[in-house]
């Protein structure tokens, strides 16, 4: 039995169907088990060459992708923007063409500009996976958040998820919004109006102005990281005040009508957007998110590898 492909690239969740998102989540399930094996490695992507092209520093996402790739037996090369010709002013398109000339199969790209993953995907034949582009999307993070929610609540339809914090600058928020809405969840965004994007309610989400409202409303909170630069750029007066007004604290959670599941894409600013006792509390699934990240990324790699670049010749019959 075969399943439909995702297409060549994974740029974002906005343009995936509910069926495609479901497929990735369902495929991630068996991959969870691979990481529990004594030998955490299967030969599914043996012989595939994958470049992790990171124009922005990211420890967590890069390591997660690298584990996913290695557990599928792919050969991987990490390219960081510093120390490569990228820092010498080479354009993205030239970098891409050079990599392709070395006959790679897939590129995982993290870039500070929105649209960079699509730009690359439109120009090279290799599969492209977006590991976060500017403020646009971070589809594998959205998927792993959804997988974690599904693990806990069994289904996403009807679930109320509040995405809290700096939605304006967050690619994680956008991927979560698209993915959750497509699978029938209700989504609210909550944060200072200075950090909510213009017209966000037109995406189909509810805007809750205060964190107390989000806590009353939601089944789960996905708490976004607040970058320290936001204060310098004048979006918020101070981190202290942010914590006082918008921080997710155990005091506030204690007033919730039910126990809320707590997600955070990391890395956390403890004491700013989330208090330590919440992050480490019984309803936090922040570490299961990290575990699921590897499974989701394995699923995406596995599914996308189906659309082989066209220089890979030959075709084998399926057994049976």
């Amino acid at each position, binding site marked *: 039995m075969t399943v439909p492909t995702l297409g060549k690239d994974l740029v974002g969740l906005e343009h995936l169907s509910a069926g495609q998102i479901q497929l990735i989540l369902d495929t991630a399930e068996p991959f969870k088990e691979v990481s529990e094996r004594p030998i955490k490695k299967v030969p599914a992507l043996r012989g595939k060459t994958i470049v992790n092209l990171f124009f922005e520093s990211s420890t967590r996402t890069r390591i997660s992708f690298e584990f996913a790739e290695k557990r599928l037996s792919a050969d991987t090369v990490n390219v960081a923007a510093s120390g490569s010709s990228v820092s010498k002013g080479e*354009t993205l398109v030239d970098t891409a063409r050079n990599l392709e000339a070395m006959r790679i199969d897939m590129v995982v790209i993290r870039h500070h500009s929105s649209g960079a993953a699509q730009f690359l995907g439109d120009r090279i034949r290799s599969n492209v996976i977006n590991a976060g582009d500017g403020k646009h999307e971070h589809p594998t993070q959205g998927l792993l958040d959804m997988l974690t929610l599904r693990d806990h609540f069994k289904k996403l339809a009807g679930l109320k998820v509040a995405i809290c914090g700096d939605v304006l600058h967050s*690619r994680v928020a956008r991927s979560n919004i698209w993915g959750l809405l497509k699978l029938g969840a209700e989504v609210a965004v909550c944060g200072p109006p200075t950090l909510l994007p213009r017209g966000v309610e037109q995406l189909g989400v509810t805007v809750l102005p205060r964190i107390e409202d989000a806590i009353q409303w939601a089944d789960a909170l996905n708490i976004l990281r607040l970058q320290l630069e936001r204060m310098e750029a004048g979006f918020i007066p101070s981190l202290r005040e942010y914590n006082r007004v918008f921080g997710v604290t155990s005091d506030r959670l204690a007033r919730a009508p039910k126990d809320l599941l707590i997600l955070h894409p990391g890395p956390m600013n403890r004491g700013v957007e989330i208090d330590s006792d919440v992050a480490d509390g019984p309803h936090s699934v922040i570490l299961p998110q990290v575990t699921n990240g590897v499974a989701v990324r394995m699923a995406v790699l596995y599914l996308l590898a189906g659309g082989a670049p066209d220089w890979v010749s030959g075709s084998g019959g399926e057994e049976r």
Partner: protein
Amino acid sequence: MRPLLIRGARVIDPSRDADGVADVLVVDGKIRAVGRNVAPPENARVIDGAGKVAAPGLIDLHVHFREPGQEDTETIATGAMAAVAGGFTAVCAMPNTDPVTDNQAAVGFVVRQSIRAAKARVYPIGAISLGQKGQQLAEFGEMVGAGAVAVSDDGKPVVSSHLMRTALEYAKVFGIPVADHCEDPTLSHGGVMHEGLVSTRLGLKGIPSAAEEIMVARDIILAELTGGHVHLCHMSTRGSVDLIRRAKEKGLRVTAEATPHHFALTHERCEGYDTHAKMNPPLREAEDRDAIRSALKDGSIDIIASDHAPHHYDAKEREFDDAPNGIVGLETALGLAIRELVVPGLLTLPQLIARMSTMPARIFHLSGGTLAVGAPADLVLFDPDARWKVEATAFHSKSRNSPFVGEELIGRTLLTLVDGRVAFDRSLGGD
């Protein structure tokens, strides 16, 4: 110079409120006669104008010709060639070159290059401030003496209200308008497209309409304060249109322009991170586009200007954040204006010619914009019904950065005369 007779064209001349089938005779670089059954002199070239429109040559008050500084993207000669191919007989070159056209010598350079190119007339616009740095006034008097027809810091806004005020006051001495690129940079900072639903979805930093409107309002207030003539470049928002409308009702000396891309396209065009849809001011919402169209109809916006902004092909081949703003427009302006404004019935052809020729000539006090007998023969003959597909390789401009490549436009230049010379003749091939 061989006399030339265009026979039986629809002659549209908004300067004289004329519109009817007639012959146009050009002798010695001047309009000799316009009327029925004009007899051609001996050895005259006779062109059949049946079904075509003969009009005063189009005039574009806002182009960027990159010379000096970036001759690989456009020169005054290639820009002037693109202009006549698009039916323009005169264009005004913005001063944001490298070095900036902010002194007498630099202005003189543009004039000399224009004469050497001998295509469209290229009029220099001088900078408002030295180096366009927004601090010290440039020498308006010297520049006007060398041929500048207006001043502008276009490409950059005039941030200082004090500078804008003094520019408007000082320009009155020379009777020239001050053209402003209206943008509050503290509000648009880092923005790459219109702030709205599309920027939210694409995760691109938006430029709110207010960034333009704040400066439009300021410029209008300063025009009232000083009695100077402010010309508002490339208006893009419905709020700006409202402000201009009120200023005109008050009788202030405010004129405004809109570009073909702002009356043809909306911010949805940025979908897929198409860098050919990246401009400043950005493409706005459908309501803004519609307001621009209505303003062109009722005259709140006086003229159409292309904001022709050439970029080397690979400059646009990059991340949206890093791609430069602007598109080439001289060779698509007429076809877009007819397709978007005339065919849907917003403007008549005579109204369009007024917005693209007669009015621009008046605003910047240029010759042209008329087919009056005795006037220099700056004339365009175009087929208003020709449907043609835009091909990047067919541009006369050195650059190809146009979002309209592949689209079908309506209306195409056949012949362009500048001072009676044939500056462009499509029948001679090349296309």
